[in-house]
């Protein structure tokens, strides 16, 4: 698939490949109170979906629905073309192997050291060769620059370090889809930026489809307007002549009380008339 130089309008996006993630009219209620209300969207492979919205608007619930941790009351959720809603837990586990998630607070296993946290998925998937496990753990910890903390317990880590270990844990099994729940929340701007770089690196070097929940405008700017250059080992502005291209589009979705308030590209968001959306515009 040719990558367009600038974003195409959301509605006209070509349907050449199966979306990596798709929701069709998904609704969910807790105790008869609707928390997700008729949500539909698509994320193409290698694309980025940026989920915005006030607290309690249903962003984390969308991630849990994508993973099959929650079942919707109505609607279809397709992962790489397969509807996961009717699947039992055992079949879901096969699908979840292709996905990694970084939870809002990291959700590292408190009782296990960093090494065991990061290797958890590998062991669970049946890997028994300790040399292989250690090599992979060192590789992903190196990727997030946390190799020095390999023997530490989660309680000994700072917030930013926990987030990075959580990313390492999520990518250990090389998922093709990554879900990040507010990965930069509560971090200082510099640490937040290193997290953004990691997200972009995974997306652009390995073609990982990404869903990023965030409250920070700065994150959306970086995720949309920069790509990772393998040669320079740094972020470079997207859309420069001759520079590296993003593999997939960056889409925005703004949630409001469980409903989709806006869906589209950055340019479409900038043009959106609704004044309540303007606070999300850079």
């Amino acid at each position, binding site marked *: 698939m040719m990558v367009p130089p600038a974003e195409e309008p959301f509605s006209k996006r070509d349907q050449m490949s199966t979306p990596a993630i798709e929701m069709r009219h998904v609704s969910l209620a807790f105790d008869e109170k609707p928390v997700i209300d008729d949500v539909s969207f698509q994320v193409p492979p290698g694309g980025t979906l940026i989920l915005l919205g006030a607290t309690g608007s249903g962003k984390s619930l969308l991630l849990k629905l994508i*993973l099959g*941790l929650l079942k919707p009351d109505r609607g279809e959720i397709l992962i790489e073309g397969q509807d996961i809603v009717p699947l039992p837990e055992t079949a879901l586990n096969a699908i979840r192997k292709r996905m990694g998630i970084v939870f809002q*607070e990291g959700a590292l*296993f*408190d009782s296990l050291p960093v090494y065991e946290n990061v290797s958890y998925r590998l062991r669970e998937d049946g890997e028994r060769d300790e040399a292989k496990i250690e090599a992979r753990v060192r590789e992903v910890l190196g990727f997030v620059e946390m190799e020095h903390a390999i023997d530490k317990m989660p309680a000994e880590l700072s917030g930013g370090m926990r987030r990075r270990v959580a990313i390492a844990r999520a990518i250990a099994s090389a998922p093709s889809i990554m879900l990040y729940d507010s990965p930069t929340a509560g971090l200082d701007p510099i640490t937040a930026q290193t997290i953004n770089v990691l997200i972009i690196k995974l997306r652009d070097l390995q073609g990982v489809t990404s869903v990023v929940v965030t409250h920070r405008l700065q994150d959306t700017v970086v995720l949309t307007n920069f790509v990772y250059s393998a040669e320079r080992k740094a972020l470079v502005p997207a859309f420069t002549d001759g520079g590296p291209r993003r593999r997939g589009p960056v889409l925005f979705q703004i949630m409001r009380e469980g409903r989709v308030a806006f869906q589209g590209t950055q340019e479409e968001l900038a043009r959106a008339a609704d004044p309540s959306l303007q606070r999300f515009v850079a």
Partner: protein
Amino acid sequence: MQSFLKRKVLAVQDFVYLFAYSFRNLVSPPRYYADMLVQMDVIGVGSLPIVLLTGFFTGAVLALQSYRSLARFGEVALTGQVVALSVVLELGPVLTAIVVAGRNSSGIASEIGSMLVSEQIDALRAMGTDPQRKLVAPRFFATLLTLPLLTVLADFIALLGGYLIAFSTAHLSSKEYWVPAYQSLGPHDVVQGLLKPFVFAVIISLVGCYFGLRTTGGTEGVGRATTEAVVVAVVLIFVLDFFITRFLIGIGFA
């Protein structure tokens, strides 16, 4: 009122599911043996000192009271017998279960509860682990295996505590204490005393898991789950103790 009853029925249903799943998880892989060993250490070895301490003093005070009561009827020689029957049938199993419930129903509920509110249980599921297998089954079987052992040790040390009092205060010889104590215990008594800890182990572990898994409301909710788990476990132990005893007497076993 109706919704109250409905909730209670649903709670019992959830509890039965936990029980059934634990056995299903025993007969099919994956099984988390390492977690079970850790839990046996936490629940069994960890409870040992406090179980022995309470057992010893229970036996001692029981001997003291029995001796003083029996002395009024001139039946001091029955001290060993009274202590042995009370300890093996009731005090050993019940007090051990209460102590372990206080330590471990709360411990299990707070550990699972904090894993739940910090999304660690979601993280387990996201990585393909069934929390029932990983968290509930190891605690269930660890308690089921260790509580009867703890009870036997508690029984023994209680008899020993009783003996020290009988020897020092009542001036009974070793033979005058141990022989009637031993002879008074029939096989039925021993079976009854060993059956109870298995039932109590189910209560201690599953009540802890149940309240941990339905924690809501963040860190505060963990505190609530912990308290509820201990209260419910302790009350259930007393109530079930009565009904087990009543049942065994009813079928002519005791």
